[in-house]
């Protein structure tokens, strides 16, 4: 891609299949915000999504309690999905690195349009897998032939038969 970030389909598929719980930093309680769309979709696909947003702490978003900070989220967090701007990504990355072992964090994923190379380098040095400037909803849909339903170019060419899946 133009941004020089090359994530192979296999790499992204591996992440999306290994991860079960996602902390969504910057999740919004408003139905018409992009994060709400992504959270809803990821829930439908079977992920537990825990919203993190100090301004909505204590509120429920899509049936999940929202927490003010990563450290407060209960249980294991396989992946942190970042809906903040590129600058804020640095601080969240440092939090994720600090909580890595306590929370079992393995992946930090920065949303489409978000990129912070220094933060990514710190994360990778700490053993985290980092994805930047991609949307897990779009990538999940693309890799599972659902994006194609919308008339989009998935760039996937294959004559292999996929296992039909429910939902």
């Amino acid at each position, binding site marked *: 891609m*133009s941004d020089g970030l090359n994530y192979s389909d296999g790499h992204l598929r591996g992440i999306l299949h290994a991860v079960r719980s996602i902390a969504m930093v910057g999740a919004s309680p408003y139905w018409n915000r992009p994060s709400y*769309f992504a959270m809803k*979709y990821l829930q439908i696909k079977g992920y537990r999504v825990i919203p993190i947003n100090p301004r909505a702490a204590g509120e429920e978003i899509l049936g999940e309690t929202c927490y003010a900070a990563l450290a407060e989220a209960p249980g294991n967090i396989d992946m942190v999905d970042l809906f903040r701007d590129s600058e804020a990504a640095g601080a969240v990355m440092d939090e994720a690195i600090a909580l890595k072992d306590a929370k079992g964090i393995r992946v930090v994923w920065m949303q489409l349009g978000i990129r912070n190379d220094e933060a990514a380098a710190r994360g990778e040095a700490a053993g985290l897998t980092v994805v930047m400037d991609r949307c897990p909803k779009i990538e999940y849909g693309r890799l599972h032939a659902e994006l*194609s339903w919308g*008339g989009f170019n998935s*760039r996937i060419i294959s004559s292999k*038969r996929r296992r039909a899946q429910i939902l």
Partner: protein
Amino acid sequence: MTKTDNPNWSPFGFETRMIHAGTPPEPVTGARQTPIFQNISYVFYDADHAASLYNLQTFGFLYSRLSNPTVAALEERIASLEAGRGATCCASGHAAQMLAFFAFMEPGDAFISSTRLYGGSITQFGKTFKKFDWHCHFVDFDEPENVRKALTPKCKAIFCESLANPGGVVTDLEAIAGIAEEAGVLLIVDNTMATPYLCRPFEWGAGLSIHSTTKFLSGNGTSLGGCVVDSGTFDWAKNDKFGGLTKPEPAYHGLTFYETFGDLAFTTHAHAVGLRDLGATMAPMNAFQTLLGIETLSLRIERHCQNAQKVAEFLDAHDLVDWVSYAGLKSSPYHALAKKYLSGGFGSVFTFGVKGGYQMGMKVVENCELCSHLANVGDTRTLILHPASTTHRQLTDEQALAAGAGPDVVRVSVGLETLDDITADLDQALKTAAEQTKKAAE
């Protein structure tokens, strides 16, 4: 935009994508050829699933006016061939034009179009669009500066055909795209005549590309259809011209498409609002026919172009022919542009001028035996037409001339028949017409 910095570029070759893009095996049955989903509605798992679909929170099918699996396969295939982000298929080429402008035009808005267009498009833009208070300013794109001069604050887009119907005219896409970019407006290119095999408009800066899939993509004259391909690279928020995508959409309970869907916004909007509310949907059977057609696109276009080149040379040397406007002829003023923008041929639709004007033009067409006298292009059959008395007869003499459809003009869409049979038919038609015209004058 070069290949490598286009995020939608695929490492697979054109011919591979022509056969495979959008059509993996059907997962439930394993059917290798794409099923025709002759079906209107799709069962919801539960109320929450229904709500997610209505809210555009999940991918999936709801009702075939908005989207259908067979049509979606075709959409992905065409998007892939042009390295676009997504595509929206619809009932016809004209529906595609309507759908493209509908996304961002408001009453009072304007756009600039080339005068060298398919006659039906000139009427659609100049007359019917006026009823929506959309204003089209036609200018001669041969001099790109004309386009810059025609820009007004209300102008939102620039429209042209890459290889224009009927004339063998090629537009200087890069120059026009530069003007569009500077002005912050969208360049829309009708790529029907060139097809994605000969020209990929996004490589030259177009934001959207339009097709009448009725023509070469379906290829056999069976299926009407249209398509709007979105490059995914146009920044709708660069100014306040594109509120249809950047402001809350009242027809979608206030959803802001560009913010929510990013580079998927145009195609999502074109389905969820455009097709939903304008209703000009492509039929699944037509999508299937068009998918089949595209599987052999490169082979057909190569031969179309080879035949057309030879027919053009034959006519160019013919005593009863005054001129030939085919971009493949070295004498064509568009030859250099054609070499730049078209790869692998010069198209197969062109015009020639007969000696003897309007009457002679009509007679040539009437005397063809093999070539079909009808209003269409891009069929396996050779098609012939006298635009001034048919497709362009709605236009004033001045408009017809500007569109390359003067009284002496005959348009031919060269098919895939044996070359000698095509030239022999045109030869006898020209000679018989000349005799008849001579007799009538006596």
